């Protein structure tokens, strides 16, 4: 099973909601769509699921053109952010409902439901009604229904967004295991960069109705194609500063100069934007090549496992995120160190032109 999108787009009232997109989704791993609210994740999922018609393009499932097929005929499942279950049915019947619609023999229905219930630890709840369950159990019921159906593709649209933090953590760990070894294509929409990283697989970054980058999750994280992609895939947001490059030197907006190497050194002289993720701006020097900058501390957050400092640097608000406990005084100046190997260099219009090289 695979899903191929060929130049699909969606226009609503003359406004392009989804710009021309061509992608291929494969089974065996999670296909994550990452983007802010309103980036078009749900719109794209609706197109693939057939809940909305494409304005242009084709959708192929296993090479078969399904563009004109209704969602029922595409054999897919959708799990929504809100817990959607049939309120008048017990958990068992909720999980069994798509199988019964498909007129599966009774004995087989029972087996499938029990298998799905075991995977999601719902066995003791099969006789209860949805309103007697907690939010996590309700969402697990919705997931079990989607799994029992053994559809060709399953769409998970921010399924964990309304759950407690710890529950989210548990399910996030379980989900990839649930789907591994199945021939189902899994497409998972989320607005949390960390969730994309934890789910692994492949990630497509979405912003403004277009998938800007698609590939193996860790690759995308380490090699963003442009500033927008880097912004979408950074939590907290990526720090940026304008730099002037001249020869092998670059001067940052705050007057700090840095020595460039490798690709960055080869760039034409001129203005660039430097981008660096908060976890590569640290309050202690680790390498001789680290660049020291001085920031004025605005807010600090100590969470035990990590410390973050929001500080002003060169008229920008920067964030530093470090493991462990680091005390800062608000309103005071503090030195921070940038790991040059982790820097991204963007052209003024936001395209990635060079990045630091991790050669130790």
């Amino acid at each position: 099973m695979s899903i191929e999108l060929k130049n699909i787009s969606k226009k609503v009232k003359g406004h392009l909601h989804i710009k021309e997109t061509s992608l291929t989704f494969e089974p065996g791993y999670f296909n994550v769509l990452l983007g802010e609210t309103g980036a078009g994740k749900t719109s794209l999922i609706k197109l693939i699921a057939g809940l909305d018609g494409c304005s242009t393009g084709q959708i192929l499932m296993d090479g078969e053109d399904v563009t004109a097929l209704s969602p029922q005929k595409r054999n897919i499942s959708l799990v929504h952010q809100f817990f959607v279950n049939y309120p008048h049915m017990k958990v068992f019947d909720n999980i069994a409902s798509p199988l019964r619609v498909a007129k599966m023999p009774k004995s087989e229905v029972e087996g499938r439901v029990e298998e799905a219930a075991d995977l999601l630890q719902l066995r003791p709840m099969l006789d209860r009604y949805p309103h007697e369950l907690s939010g996590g159990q309700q969402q697990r019921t919705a997931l079990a229904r989607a799994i029992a159906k053994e559809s060709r593709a399953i769409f998970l649209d921010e399924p964990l967004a309304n759950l407690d933090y710890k529950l989210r953590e548990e399910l996030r760990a379980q989900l990839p295991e649930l789907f591994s070894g199945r021939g189902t294509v899994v497409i998972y929409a989320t607005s949390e960069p960390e969730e994309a990283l934890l789910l692994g697989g492949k990630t497509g970054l979405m912003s403004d109705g277009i998938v800007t980058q698609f590939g193996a999750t860790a690759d995308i994280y380490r090699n963003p194609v442009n500033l927008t992609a880097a912004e979408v895939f950074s939590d907290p947001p990526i720090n940026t500063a304008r730099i002037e490059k001249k020869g092998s030197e670059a001067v940052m907006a705050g007057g700090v100069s840095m020595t460039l190497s490798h690709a960055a050194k080869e760039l034409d002289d001129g203005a660039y934007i430097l981008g660096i993720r908060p976890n590569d701006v640290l309050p202690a020097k680790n390498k001789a090549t680290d660049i020291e900058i001085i920031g004025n501390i605005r807010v600090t957050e100590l969470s035990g496992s990590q410390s973050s400092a929001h500080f002003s640097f060169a008229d920008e608000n920067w964030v530093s995120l470090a493991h462990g406990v680091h005390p800062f005084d608000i309103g005071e100046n503090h030195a921070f160190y940038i790991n040059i190997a982790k820097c991204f260099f963007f052209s003024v219009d936001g395209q990635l032109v060079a990045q630091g090289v991790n050669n130790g």
Partner: protein
Amino acid sequence: MKKQNQKAWFFVLPVLLLVAFNALIPMMTVVNYSVQETFGNNLFFWQGLDWFENILRSERFHAALGRQFLFTGLILLIEVPLGVIVALSMPRKGFWVSICLVTMALPMLIPWNVVGAMWNIFTLPDIGLVGYFMNHVVGIDYNMTQDPFAAWVTVIVMDVWHWTSLVVLLSYAGLVSIPEAYYQAAKIDGASNWAVFRHIQLPKMKSVLTIAILLRFMDSFNIYTEPFVLTGGGPGNSTTLLSIDLVKIALGQFDLGPAAAMSLIYFAITLLVSWLFYTLMTKDNTN
């Protein structure tokens, strides 16, 4: 490129047929009557727009129209605030909710003509409970079959009794859909009861109230059965509302042409007022 699915039109077809038989075809016959004169025997004479002109100039029509607007205006002025007040004072949860709701719905379940007959007997000065009470206990000279004022009061009280529940139920539905957090926030913000009503309840009830007012306007503007059974349009012509007058012309005098013209004018007025009201009420939602 894109294959448009045209199947949807088939689903609309039954409704189109229903509307045609229900509204369009009968209305075309009315239009047909309104421009001709007939004396029976299926003989028709072309009249053009004469009937319309006659109706629009007729004192009788003006009087009935005036009474109609007065009636509808009073009904709205009483039923809408009263309905909202009753809805506000109803319990939001607990045992009494269902009892209140059923009690409220009861008057609306009674057929129109039964309501008229009920109130007729109820208010008869000699044997009716209210009539007897007013005349012999309170000591007010009350006779709705002879006194136009008493007749008006009775017709209006009857309608208020029959239809305020509709406003109550719709407002209540609007009220219970307001999340608890709004009330809590208002309490903490130190808002007075009036401020809570003005800034939370009223805005959140707006859409249901629009529907309630629209329904009550159309219903009361077209009301026929209840006042006809109760007063028969009397005493004299004092409670002859538009619909009663229309039936008198059509079936009493058998003037089909003028009656048809009048009903078209009647229809146009109802449509115009409803449209005006609706656009005014929903105007600032769109921008």
